[in-house]
């Protein structure tokens, strides 16, 4: 089982545009950590640094007690699977063929897949509900089905750390909940580490063990849902007023946007 931590990460695209400053984070096994924050708050940047795909200006990411920049891409991919926010899709793969690419880190680029690899592929397809669509061409899938295929590929990597950038993007409500439940179940069953960037605060409250709220180039707050999702912090991070009530079924915080800074759809003529 792998471990991952970030120490004093600072990253900027240039000196006038620092995205994250002196950020430290330690990830725990068996835990779903959700990164929240407004657009441009640094969620994707942080995930890419944790995956070793962006080099911080200072600080370092340590994977299994080794600075991540000292590990090969393949070594990283065996232990850590990253689901990007968006992907190109110009190759006419079937879903199964794309999910099989998730095994490249284990098998290498030139070796044929073994029975063990094929089993991992089938398990990943089943876990994401993509078995029936496995032989469909990717270019014929809906956006949501395509996202589930990418999730299946990340699961097929059988890495013990999952970094998922907006995994529910484009999914319908049922599949959003299915997707987050499956990730949570998997993390608990296999004692994995999962870091997700999400935008839905209420879903986050239901599925996250810990929440890190990014704002002002740093982690403004980190803790459980009741500690982080307060009206004051939400106003600071997102610039909107909200009231927090208890979810009638789950008992988690339910964030209800209110006040004059709420967008047009709550204007009097619509309500």
């Amino acid at each position, binding site marked *: 089982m792998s471990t991952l931590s970030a120490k004093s990460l600072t990253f900027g695209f240039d000196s006038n545009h620092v995205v994250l400053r002196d950020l430290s984070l330690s990830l725990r096994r068996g835990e779903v950590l959700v990164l929240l924050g407004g657009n441009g708050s640094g969620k994707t940047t942080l995930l890419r640094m944790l995956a070793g795909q962006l080099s911080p200006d200072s600080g370092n990411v340590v994977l299994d007690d080794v600075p991540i920049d000292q590990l090969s891409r393949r070594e990283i991919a065996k232990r850590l699977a990253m689901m990007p926010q968006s992907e190109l*899709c*110009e190759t006419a793969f079937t879903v199964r063929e794309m999910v099989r690419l998730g095994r*490249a880190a284990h098998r290498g680029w030139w070796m044929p897949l073994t029975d063990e690899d094929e089993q991992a592929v089938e398990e990943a397809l089943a876990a994401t509900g993509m078995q029936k669509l496995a032989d469909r061409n990717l270019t014929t899938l809906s956006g949501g089905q395509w996202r589930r295929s990418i999730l299946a590929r990340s699961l097929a990597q059988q890495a013990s750390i999952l970094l998922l950038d907006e995994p529910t993007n484009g999914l319908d409500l049922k599949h959003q909940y299915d997707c987050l439940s499956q990730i949570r179940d998997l993390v608990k069953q296999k004692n994995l580490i999962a870091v997700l960037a999400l935008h839905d605060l209420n879903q986050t409250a239901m599925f996250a063990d810990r929440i890190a709220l990014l704002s002002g180039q740093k982690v403004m707050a980190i803790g459980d849902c009741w500690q982080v999702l307060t009206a004051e912090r939400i106003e600071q991070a997102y610039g909107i007023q909200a009231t927090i009530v208890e979810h009638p079924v789950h008992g988690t915080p339910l964030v209800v946007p209110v006040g004059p800074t709420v967008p047009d759809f709550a204007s009097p003529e619509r309500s």
Partner: protein
Amino acid sequence: MKAMPVRILIAAVVMFVIAVLSSLVGATTISASDLFWSMLGESVLDETDRTILFQLRLPRLVVAGLVGGSLAAAGVGFQGLFRNPLAEPYVIGASSGASLGVALVIISGLRASFFSIGATTLLAMIGAIAVVMMVLVIGSLARSPSTMSLLLAGVVMSSMVNAIVSALMFLYDQKAVVILSWLMGSVANSHWGTASVAAVVGGSGVILIGLCARPLDAFALGDTASQSLGLDLSTFRWLIIAAASVATAGAVAASGVIGFVGLISPHIARMFVGSRHAVLIPMSVFVGGSLMLIADAIARTVIAPAELPVGIVTAILGCPFFLWLLLRDRRSDSTLGASQ
């Protein structure tokens, strides 16, 4: 999916049939039965026809097939690397480097040969590889090295080297026609030595590109996704550029600059087998080889006994085909080259 190997096999058979038919035509016509018995070692042809067949026409056909296949594979490699269906084998300066090498040989009158490989062939190959290496170094010195910085470095270096070649042609105008005829591309003077260069150099590049089929598939998903799957992007870029440049250098050294084959062959191949590189690369090789064989047959028969440079034929055939592809894609509202 099981139909794919069958389609590739059919493409290989088609290429072989085109090669056989092409060996029969030219300024001297050879009958199919004479060809058949001659290949079995029977003496059915007179000495002149035997020389034409075995010393002129067969090496020429082999070179045409190898050049077409190498350019097509290099085209797949560069189109995959730049994620751009308009990329072609000369995109990062191989042709301009080869042209400079050949211009220098022609102007200096160098007659040396190395293992029966002439100075022109050798300098073309060295020029192609040298310019590509310079592009790689310049591209990697960019503030943020990327595929795009390589492409831009290639465009700039090509323009500069082409300007030097033009200046040389202007200064040594009595040699300009000779340089120009090489630039137009031809397999007319091929011999078994040329064929061995095309086979060894071009073939090595093709095999290397073939080995990169799965990394090319992963790379098509984008930088973040392919890195997440364990692909080391900088190694991958170097490998593809090296492989595609070696394939191009082998082709250019054997036949001069032949346009359009490397650009359109991958597009034709995609129409039959889709865009997965494990099937696209071999299919493109056979399509490219077939196109070159057809173009060469036209080049040596259309104004027989004189010959057209094959590069002119590939351009004349390639342009309308590419336009057709463009219009077809506009109608079907799909990305050029991304057909299933």
